[in-house]
């Protein structure tokens, strides 16, 4: 059984078709890296998986349960709000721009959702939060506010905040794209540690190095479609498709 299954996902913004039938199946513990040029639809696809964007057509299943599937008219129909909320709670999300809550301390950022959404008692939420901060190497920043942290530290807090809800799948939307190059390493290290713990992960990224080292499967998207997928070696070192080759040559040269 798949942890996450998306079949034939279609999505339009107005007249612009950004996803033209994308499918992805993710097994428990798999790490998927989605790469591709900007505008390829990779971020939109990721955002569709937890309904930050709604899909027009296709099926989305999380942990074996349907979140959306095609109705008789061929358009996607979402399950009821209660089920969706429950399913979405299985997914953690990390954004390009961190989106930490600026008016809350680091510790409060981590404790908020467990206490408000899952009614976890304060002491327990704080313990979990402190454990997670230790894990991402930011124990000493617990009482700081986001603006006092570097971008890399903020992103590590954001990862810890998502983990505080104990998700089964972690989605990362270009987690290092807003960071200065010297700060990406600390974030990628935390993500690598997560992968080693067999967290199921879907990562939209420009970090070819990370994809090569950590991902079980690399997916190359372009123009709303999956052009090529396979192991990191297959896709990154021996790409078969011309579009993959030309994309890789541009990103690798840029480095």
């Amino acid at each position, binding site marked *: 059984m798949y942890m996450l299954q998306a079949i034939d996902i279609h999505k339009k913004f107005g007249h612009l078709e950004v996803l033209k039938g994308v499918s992805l199946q993710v097994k428990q513990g798999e790490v998927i890296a989605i790469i591709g040029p900007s505008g390829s639809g990779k971020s939109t696809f990721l955002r569709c998986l937890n309904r930050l964007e709604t899909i027009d057509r296709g099926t989305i299943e999380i942990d074996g349960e349907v979140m959306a599937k095609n109705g008789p008219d061929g358009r996607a129909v979402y399950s009821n709000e209660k089920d969706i909320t429950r399913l979405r709670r299985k997914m953690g999300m990390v954004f390009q721009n961190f989106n930490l809550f*600026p008016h809350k301390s680091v510790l409060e950022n981590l404790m908020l959702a467990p206490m*408000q*959404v899952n009614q976890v008692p304060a002491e327990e939420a704080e313990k979990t939060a402190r454990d997670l901060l230790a894990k991402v190497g930011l124990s000493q920043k617990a009482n700081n506010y986001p603006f006092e942290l570097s971008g890399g530290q903020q992103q590590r807090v954001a990862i810890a905040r998502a983990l505080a809800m104990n998700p089964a799948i972690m989605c990362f939307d270009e987690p290092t794209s807003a960071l200065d190059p010297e700060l990406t390493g600390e974030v990628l290290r935390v993500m690598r540690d997560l992968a080693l713990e067999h967290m199921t992960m879907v990562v939209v990224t420009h970090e070819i190095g990370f994809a090569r080292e950590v991902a079980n499967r690399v997916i190359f998207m372009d123009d709303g479609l999956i052009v090529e997928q396979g192991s990191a070696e297959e896709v990154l070192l021996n790409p078969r498709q011309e579009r993959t080759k030309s994309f890789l040559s541009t990103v690798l040269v840029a480095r």
Partner: protein
Amino acid sequence: MDYVISILPQMGKGWLVTMQIFAVTLLSLPLGVVLGIARLSKFKPLAWFMEVYVWVFRGTPLLLQLLFWYYGLMAVGVRIERETAVYVAFILNYAAYLAEIFRSGIQSIDRGQYEAADVLGLSRRQTMTQIILPQVFKRVLPPIGNEVINLVKDTALVYIIAMSELSRVARIRAVTDDTLVPFAIAAVFYLLMTAIVQNFFKWVEARLDYYH
């Protein structure tokens, strides 16, 4: 000096009336929050109604609105207390301005804040009360301060329905005693009040300065 002291009790009474109007009108602050949110409602008739509301109450002079709530209603046979008319006029008028300030404040919050709250499973209400509004309050503090200081001075408008607040008392004394001194005293009263408001907002801004 003796003259100043002799009219102070009367001026003080007028000042109390002014303060009362001021204090009651502060109710327009919570009302403004609610109306500002309603203005952004996805339920179109509500958003549309709010737009008309803001247009009418921001688009006509407060002076006219005072006349309407007192004499206007009286003309169609509805008698309400002078004070009630004043409170209704001021609260509804100020809520219109404040609703616009809160609306723009809410819209200025980054979409990422909503998305982060959303993926963490927070409900719309939780997102609003815990994430969005606290940040909005910090952002709208300067324009709100402006409005509250305006309010201190706008209270003078109720002279139009013959309510004896500070400036009306000053005018009556000035005319009867043939002197400008009461106006100077009134000015001092207003300056003291605005100084308090100004410093209060400065204090709140400083208290919220713990984050950017």
